[in-house]
């Protein structure tokens, strides 16, 4: 590090020189903008730039371009980020340390729109950004290009004069994490599984069941895999729930008791997100079952023409990879998307809490109906047609046939499949993540309007980096799900199937 010191000074000097040049070169453009690098604010892989400019109505935003060498044209550089200029009166100032590109205006965190992108006020004359992703110890050339409302640059993008900055905060090559504890733990899990199997085997031997001698050997690989990759993480997760683990503390977390659980329960929106999770799961399952059953009954009608065609088409939402369908709906529901086109409107469905919630539920309903339809189709085909013929002779109406013959006979399928569907929907992640990411945003650390427990835990862990809190959430969800699964297994008498 020490050898680099002089360079830093040199860089600062060069920067200053370049800044003067930039200022000089800026003369042709009336009301020049001035970009400077704030060396005092060096941070890990971040270079902080400050931009002073004269506000103008023509400016609709700024593009920040950067490259590892000097450049004059944007063609030789990469677009780092953009900052929009718009009315900020309805927007909140964003959190300072969640997002990668921290920006400020007037010394305060910059305004953020609903998507989290930075927005500068039209009246402002400066902003600053800590640009992330900069290689430590290497010079970076940075240029800021104001753009107009049509996205066209307001300056000549072929003769840019970038500023040079560098961050000296060393690339903190954290020493390769100590793998020993994990390896010890894993071997312990493997050994205890093997010990358990050996014990069970001895029990068998004592009871003289020599035929099943090999059984434990057969089960061993699967069981060991499950133990190391499921039981162990669950136990580790429970431990994490009582520690202060977060993004920066990995492997050296410390016991903090029930503090994480306190955070969970004291946090805003705990009950809201729980309630929405249940609304989400119940409404989905009800719709899946009702529509799936309706379609199955419709397709089951004798003499229906084109049954196979209908069936195959109606299967599509199940057959198309889920993430693709969800992203497609995302596009269709955009203000300029197909749905608005058909309605002749330009509604942002993802904007309001109510409409965003409705939309995520509707899209998930779309995804889940075919599976139920197929299950019920199979069950309907198994019903004896003579039953309906007898009912016909007895003069039972169609509706009553459905109500008193079909439904009771489907109960054996209906109840377990609904419970399974409930658990699946409860656990589902993709639909919400890919449609809204839990947005509309409700505040830092708070579940968004469309967050379920599952997506919220994801956000807590991987967006906020609070592993300990996320683990506490996970433990709570785990307990809830044990309850459901128990009910499900009881209900389906799965254990009888085991015997």
């Amino acid at each position, binding site marked *: 590090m020490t050898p680099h010191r002089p360079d830093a000074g040199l860089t600062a000097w060069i920067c200053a020189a370049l800044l003067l040049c930039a200022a000089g070169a800026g003369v042709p453009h009336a009301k020049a903008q001035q970009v400077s690098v704030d060396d005092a604010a060096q941070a890990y892989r971040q270079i902080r730039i400050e931009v002073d400019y004269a506000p103008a109505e023509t400016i609709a935003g700024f593009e920040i371009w950067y490259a590892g060498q000097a450049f004059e044209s944007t063609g030789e550089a990469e677009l780092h980020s953009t900052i929009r200029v718009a009315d900020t009166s309805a927007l909140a100032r964003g959190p300072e340390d969640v997002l990668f590109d921290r920006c400020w205006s007037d010394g305060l965190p910059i305004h953020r729109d609903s998507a989290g992108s930075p927005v500068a006020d039209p009246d402002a004359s400066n902003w600053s950004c800590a640009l992330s992703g900069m290689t430590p110890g290497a010079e970076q050339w940075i240029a800021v290009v104001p753009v107009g409302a049509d996205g066209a640059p307001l300056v000549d993008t072929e003769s840019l004069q970038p500023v040079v900055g560098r961050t000296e905060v060393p690339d903190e090559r954290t020493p390769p994490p100590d793998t020993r504890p994990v390896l010890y733990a894993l071997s312990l899990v493997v050994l205890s599984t093997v010990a358990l199997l050996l014990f069970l085997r001895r029990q068998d031997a004592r009871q003289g069941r020599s035929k099943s001698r090999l059984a434990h050997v057969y089960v061993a690989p699967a069981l060991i*895999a499950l133990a190391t990759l499921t039981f162990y993480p669950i136990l580790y997760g429970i431990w994490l729930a009582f520690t202060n683990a977060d993004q920066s503390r990995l492997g050296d977390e410390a016991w903090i008791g029930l503090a994480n659980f306190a955070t969970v329960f004291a946090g805003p929106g705990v009950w809201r997100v729980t309630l929405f999770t249940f609304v989400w799961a119940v409404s989905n399952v009800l719709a899946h079952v009702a529509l799936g059953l309706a379609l199955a009954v419709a397709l089951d009608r004798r003499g229906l*023409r084109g049954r196979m065609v209908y069936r195959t088409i109606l299967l599509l939402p199940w057959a198309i990879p889920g993430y693709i369908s969800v992203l497609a709906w995302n596009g269709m529901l955009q203000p300029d998307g197909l749905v608005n086109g058909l309605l002749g409107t330009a509604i942002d469905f993802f904007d309001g809490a109510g409409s965003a919630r409705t939309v995520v539920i509707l899209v998930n309903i779309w995804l889940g109906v075919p599976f139920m339809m197929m299950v019920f189709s199979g069950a309907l085909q198994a019903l004896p047609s003579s039953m309906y013929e007898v009912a016909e002779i007895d003069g039972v109406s169609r509706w009553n046939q459905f109500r008193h013959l079909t439904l009771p006979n489907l109960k054996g399928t209906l109840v377990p499949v609904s419970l399974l569907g409930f658990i699946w929907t409860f656990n589902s992640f993709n639909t919400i993540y890919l449609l809204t990411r839990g947005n509309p945003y409700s505040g830092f650390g708070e579940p968004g309007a469309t967050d379920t427990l599952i997506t919220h835990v994801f956000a807590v862990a991987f967006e906020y980096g609070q592993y300990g809190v996320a683990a506490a959430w996970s433990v709570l969800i785990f307990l809830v799900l044990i309850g459901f699964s128990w009910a499900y297994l009881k209900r389906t008498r799965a254990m009888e199937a085991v015997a």
Partner: protein
Amino acid sequence: MNGNTHNSTDGGQGSATLAERWYVPVEIRALRVWLPFAALVNLLILAGEALRGNGAEQLGVLGAIVLLLILRASLPDGRQRWRRYAGQGLAAAILVLGLLSLLRRDATFYDLWATSWLFAPSALALYWMSAGLSGSWCAGAQDAGAAELGLARNRSLAPRFEAFALHTFLIHAVALVVAPVIWIVDVSISPGNILGGAIFDAFTLEHFRAVLGGEAFWLWTRNSLVVALGTTLVGLLLAIPAGYAFSRYQFAGRKGAMFVFMLIQMFPGIIILVPYFMVMKTLGLLNTSLGLIVAYSVTALPLCVWMLKGFFDAVPRALEEAALLDGCNRVEVFFFVVLPLSLPAVAITALFSFLTAWNEFLLALVFNTSNDAYTLPVGLASMIPATGQLWGDFAAASIVVSIPVVILFVLFQQSLIQGMSSGAVKG
């Protein structure tokens, strides 16, 4: 109406024949069921109008719903003449409402569809109540002969009416299902990244060229293939012996183990995601195919074991016993008899774990932070970030990725559904 008197056993009030008492024209029967449905659909349309914030229109639809319900309640019964007039009046009123709403604006496709749910029921009701056999029945001018004739006519027409209703229902379902598909195809062949606009108004292969010509797509495909094939292989190697043991042996701990397998299947990945991530990170398995293979084979394991157990259960025990007597040992019995016989089932299980790994998103998202390690789901989703959304390229890539998967799903639908709900439908 009471021209026939030969049915004297019916007593005083039995002046009508059996046919007369039973006969209601199929058209009127259909209206009894269809009108409430039309009201229901209009309720949905009302919700749509609420979205558009179109006050007058909302009022119109609301009025139509009320009228439809009143019409349903006052449908002719073949005796009271006033019902016919009331019905005709109501139907005409709804027709006018539909006409008004159509005239008031330049209609989009959606508007046409919405209004058709006013037009169609009211026009049909009006026509059926006024003309033909049903019309004269509504007017109460019907004798026994006509009733006999009508019953025969009902018999031949009823299936057609039912088929019409069924197809209407199914076509609506199909429209909802194919809309995103059509949209994706349209976006993929439209220049630029336009989300709305007319369907199939332009054609370009630029997006397909961009996707198939770029490196990223093939890299993601390669990653996905490695991961999915690896998962299938590892998963089967683990699941086959376990499934066989569960199916064939009685051993200490069997029930407990099977219960655990069932239970684990119900837990969301998210609850072990954090510890998983930390273990993977510590072991340096992030951004590697191996990490995902390991994770996927274990997550799919319980269901695969259950599926295979079910399949092995179907192989008769006597076959294995015969092979034992023929001099095979247990392992040979498995390889020479059980495995060949359950090969189709093993293939289905393999397909299942392959597709699970191919489509998985959450773990791939968390474990892969580098663009080079993305699998297709994460890669495709990364085309649609908050800014700079490449909808056209995404759509083209989606089509390329989906087609083989959809074909596999459609071909093996029955077995896959059975597998996915295995355990669920038992008991």
